């Protein structure tokens, strides 16, 4: 694994591509911050509509680009949260507790810079922890055979479906729908055609890209257009005033930032929880540890630092289960799976074995992206502050242009546009009826590897599946037995966090 790590440096610093990798990462960070700074436009939407760009470039360029969007988007939400008390993304809601109060006190610049440095600190530290963890976990994952993999995939899907939304059974039903949609096409063992209903265009399966863009980007557009152009914020209110952040002030918040980073990193590894909960938990922990908790909510710099370090620290660790076991922990990483799959790289134990250096190159790029993060964020804060004033009436149609163009270029097939619109309408309907579509997307993506691993297990068992699993593969048996208990514990924990902190993005 260490050789793969070193190989990652060699691939990343290939003179022919290194400049372009960093250029694209910078572009991703810029676009992510831009979209994050737009209230009503989520990081999820940005990732979904920019996903196609990554399909047509080498994964070493495309995946860091998307990771840039991911990181930038989570931070970008803090800008309008601090300036006008409008969180650009759900992850920045906790930032509104102290950010706007600091702006009123004339310390907007300080608050924005604290948000930036805390975000970068949280992100960078959690990225380093991610790299440190991924090697050992991947090494263990490589020892898993098809029965263990099938059991882990099944457990992960049930846990994620159960914890993704408020009602356990609704999550499981969406998972079942996703598994069914994933079966359309060819069965992964015998390659026999299934459920194509005579439609030639889906004989190879439902294309993943239109489905992901439809499910994750279009519903956000539908929600945004429910009301026509709302009042535009006066640009005069968006002046960044006050003194710059001093090293002493940053140092005084360092303990809080480190605590929030630890919280965010832990949350990132737990499926189905995410940035919103991490930010609230980081904020609550900072408040309870403070000697002056009464100052929180009145414009306390530490409050901004706590929330921002925690929400950005989630980003890196969500990749641990994704890259080692092939399990995306949330809707944002589902989109990253789409990017991997488009390049023929299926996240999981084999990916680390076959493409270890490439994976480490991407992870090292992710760490180095934090340096760009500081520069772009620092230089562009005034620009992103103005982004809030851009008319929604102009931006929404442009989002559609990206979504449709990205879908078309996938296969140049008009059917894909129909699939995009159908899944967009389905996603909107699901949102309104309080179904979470994340388990659907996960079922769709993980259904084929689950069926394949299950099929191999059946073959290995020679027809004696129960005795094989519980006698010859005790780890598999243990995972199966433990699944209901783990699911219950995770679900109970997620419910408690939801009740305490809320989890809407």
């Amino acid at each position: 694994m260490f050789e793969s790590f070193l190989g990652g440096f060699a691939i990343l610093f290939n003179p022919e591509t290194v400049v372009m990798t960093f250029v694209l990462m910078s572009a991703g960070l810029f676009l992510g911050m831009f979209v994050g700074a737009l209230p009503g436009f989520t990081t999820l939407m940005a990732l979904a509509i920019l996903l196609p760009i990554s399909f047509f470039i080498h994964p070493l360029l495309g995946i860091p680009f998307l990771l840039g969007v991911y990181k930038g988007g989570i931070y970008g939400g803090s800008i309008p949260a601090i300036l006008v008390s409008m969180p650009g993304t759900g992850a920045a809601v906790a930032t509104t507790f102290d950010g706007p109060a600091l702006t009123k006190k004339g310390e907007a610049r300080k608050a924005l810079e604290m948000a930036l440095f805390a975000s970068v600190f949280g992100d960078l530290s959690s990225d380093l922890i991610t790299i440190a963890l991924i090697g050992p976990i991947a090494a263990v994952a490589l020892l898993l055979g098809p029965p263990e993999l099938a059991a882990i995939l099944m457990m992960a899907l049930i846990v994620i479906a159960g914890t993704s939304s408020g009602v356990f059974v609704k999550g499981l039903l969406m998972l079942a729908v996703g598994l069914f949609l994933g079966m359309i096409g060819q069965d992964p063992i015998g390659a026999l055609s299934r459920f194509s209903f005579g439609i030639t265009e889906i004989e190879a399966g439902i294309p993943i890209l239109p489905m992901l863009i439809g499910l994750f980007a279009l519903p956000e557009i539908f929600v945004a257009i429910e009301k026509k152009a709302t009042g535009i914020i006066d640009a005069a209110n968006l002046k960044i005033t006050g003194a710059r952040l001093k090293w002493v002030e940053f140092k005084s918040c360092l303990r809080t930032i480190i605590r929030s980073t630890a919280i965010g990193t832990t949350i990132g590894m737990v499926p189905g929880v995410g940035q919103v909960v991490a930010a609230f938990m980081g904020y609550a922990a900072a408040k309870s540890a403070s000697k002056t908790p009464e100052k929180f909510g009145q414009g306390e710099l530490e409050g901004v630092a706590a929330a921002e370090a925690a929400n950005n620290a989630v980003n890196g660790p969500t990749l641990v289960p994704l890259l080692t076991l092939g399990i995306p922990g949330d809707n944002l990483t589902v989109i990253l799976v789409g990017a991997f799959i488009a390049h023929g790289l299926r996240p999981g134990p084999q990916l680390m074995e076959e493409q270890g250096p490439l994976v480490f190159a991407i992870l090292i790029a992710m760490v180095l992206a934090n340096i760009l993060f500081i520069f772009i964020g620092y230089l562009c804060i005034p620009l992103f502050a103005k982004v809030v004033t851009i008319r929604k009436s102009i931006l929404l149609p442009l989002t559609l242009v990206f979504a449709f163009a990205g879908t078309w270029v996938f296969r140049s097939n008009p059917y894909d546009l129909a699939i995009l619109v159908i899944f967009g309408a389905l996603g909107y309907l699901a949102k309104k009826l309080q179904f979470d579509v994340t388990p659907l997307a996960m079922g769709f993506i993980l259904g084929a590897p689950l069926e394949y691993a299950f099929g191999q297990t059946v073959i290995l068992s020679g027809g004696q599946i129960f005795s094989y699993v519980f006698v010859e593969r005790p780890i598999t048996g243990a995972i199966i037995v433990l699944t209901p208990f783990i699911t219950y514990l995770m679900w109970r924990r997620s419910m408690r966090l939801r009740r305490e902190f809320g989890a809407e993005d």
Partner: protein
Amino acid sequence: MASDSATGEETAPGGRYNFNTVAAVVFIVLAAALFFIIPGQIDTPLINLGGAGQSNLEAETFPQIIAVAFFLLGIWYLFVSFRLRQRNQLRDLNLEAITNVLVTLVIMTAYVGLIIFLGFVVGSFIMVFVMSTYFGNRNFILGFVVALAVPTLVFVLFTKPLVTSLPPFPIDEVIPNSWVIYPPLKYLSNKSIF
């Protein structure tokens, strides 16, 4: 209102018919339909060679498991639904919201036709201009410029550096390849590196 430990949701005292009940019935019907269409919707191997296709796991086994799980989950959901007190957010939509969503759906459908028949740039121009005007933009010059410039940029981005295809008419003919692709951008193409 009490919190139900089995569902994690706010629940009603019991026996209330609501949108979740309707959704549960729909899921149950779909699951039953799925189970019954399985034999007709899965190919059978033309010849038996005893290979992978003849493994112990038939192509219909996994779908059958999913269909049964789907059905049982539907039944579970049906029972849970009577006690759920979630809000059907479709009911919160006022006339303006419904109109806007439907208009956007119509625009999207028309946009599919427009880009197929008029090309990406012209189709997008019409869509962006119409939609931005409908949703409140009254700065028509800005609307015009944005509607023309952004689709053109997107077209150039996808077709030149990323070497993919979008319905071309009429822009492709007026942009010579020679000045759009220049050396640094060629690295973006999948084919040109590694």
